[in-house]
C-alpha cells in the first residue's frame, strides 16, 4: 500500500511538459504538494468531470501528454466517461486513480471500491489500451513511464493508504488557474492576458 504523497511526488518527478488535471479533494492537494506548476489544472469542484477535461485537452493537444490524477470517489461519479474515452482512444491520455477506498473529504465513508467494485475491470471493458494496478514504488515508477511513453489510453489504479495527510492548498480561483495554465501552454487568446 502506497503513501499517497510519496507516490504522487514520484509520479510527477521530472514531469517535463506533462499536462496534469488533478481531481477535486485529496488529489488536488497531493499534486500541489508535489510542487506547484502552471500546467496543473487544479479542480476544486466539478466532481466527476476530471477524466472528461483530460479527454478534451488530449484531443486538442495530440502533441502533448495528459495525466488525470483523481480519487476513487471522483472517478466513480464519472464512470461513463471511461466509455467515452474508450470510443475516442486518445493515445496521449492517462488516468491515475489514487484509490484509498474512501471519501476522505466527507469523513472517510467507504466508497464502492472498498466493496470490491473493480475499476481496472471497468477500464479494460472500456477498451483502455493498458489498465493495471500499482501498489509498490516500482509500480509507481512504471506508471510514471507510462504517463510519458505509453500508447494510451492508460488507466492505473494506485492503491494508497487511507491515512489522513495534511491539506496542501493550491490557488483556488478558477479563472486564475485556467489562465495560468493556458499562458504556460500558449493557448491563451491574445486579448485575454493573465
Amino acid at each position, binding site marked *: 500500500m502506497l503513501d499517497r504523497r510519496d507516490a504522487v511526488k514520484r509520479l510527477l518527478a521530472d514531469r517535463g511538459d506533462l499536462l496534469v488535471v488533478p481531481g477535486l479533494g485529496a488529489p488536488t492537494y497531493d499534486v500541489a504538494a508535489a510542487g506547484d506548476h502552471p500546467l496543473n489544472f487544479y479542480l476544486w469542484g466539478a466532481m466527476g468531470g476530471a477524466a472528461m477535461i483530460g479527454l478534451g485537452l488530449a484531443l486538442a493537444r495530440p502533441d502533448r501528454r495528459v495525466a488525470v490524477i483523481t480519487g476513487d470517489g471522483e472517478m466513480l461519479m464519472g464512470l461513463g466517461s471511461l466509455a467515452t474515452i474508450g470510443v475516442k482512444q486518445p493515445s496521449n491520455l492517462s488516468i491515475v486513480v489514487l484509490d484509498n477506498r474512501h471519501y476522505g473529504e466527507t469523513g472517510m465513508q467507504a466508497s464502492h471500491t472498498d466493496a470490491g467494485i473493480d475499476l481496472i475491470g471497468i477500464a479494460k471493458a472500456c477498451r483502455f489500451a493498458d489498465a493495471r494496478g500499482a501498489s509498490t514504488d516500482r509500480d509507481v515508477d512504471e506508471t510514471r513511464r507510462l504517463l510519458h511513453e505509453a500508447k494510451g489510453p492508460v488507466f492505473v489504479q494506485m492503491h494508497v493508504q487511507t491515512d489522513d495527510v495534511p491539506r496542501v492548498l493550491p490557488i483556488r480561483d478558477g479563472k486564475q488557474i*485556467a489562465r495560468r495554465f493556458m499562458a504556460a501552454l500558449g493557448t491563451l487568446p491574445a486579448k485575454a492576458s493573465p
Partner: protein
Amino acid sequence: MDQTVDTQTAWPDAIYAHFKRAGIRQVGYVPDAGHSRLIKRCIEDPEIIDVVLTTEEEGVGLVAGAYLGGQRAALLMQSSGVGNCINMFSLIQNCGFPCLVLVTMRGEWEEFNPWQVPMGSITEECLRLAGFSTHRIDRPERVDEFVRIAMDRAFTEERAIAVILSQMLIGKKDWR
C-alpha cells in the same frame, strides 16, 4: 413536401456553416433526433472531432479541456440533457470559459410524451440560473442570424451562451 424537407435541412446546415466559420474543432453530443442532421455533418467532417457522450454532463468537461488546449468546442443536447449538466456548469462559470450549447426542445409544443414536460418547462430558466444567456429561436429563417450572434458572444466575449431551438422549429416527433 419539398419545401418542408428543405426547411428541415437548411437550419442544421446553417448551424454547421457557423461551426466552420468560427473554427469549432470538437463537438460533444448525446444522440438526438432534433440534432441528427447536424451530428451527421460533424461526424462526416474530418476537421471536427465528434465525441459521443454517455451523458451531457461529460460534454461540459470536454468543452473546458478543449478550450484549455486551444480548441473551440460546442455541445449539442436535448432539453432533458440540460438537467444532467447543472453542477458541472459551475466549471464554466468558475473558470470563465466560453461555452456554446445548442438545445433542442422537448415538452413544450405538441408534445406527445408527457414525461418530457417537467424538464422541458424549466430548461431555459435552469440555463439562466447556471449563468447562461439564452437565445430562443422559433423559426427556421432566424437560425442563421441568431446562431452567428450567439457564437460571436460565446467566443469573442468569452461567455456561456445557450441557443434554444424550439419544438416548433424542430417539428414534432413522429410517433406512428
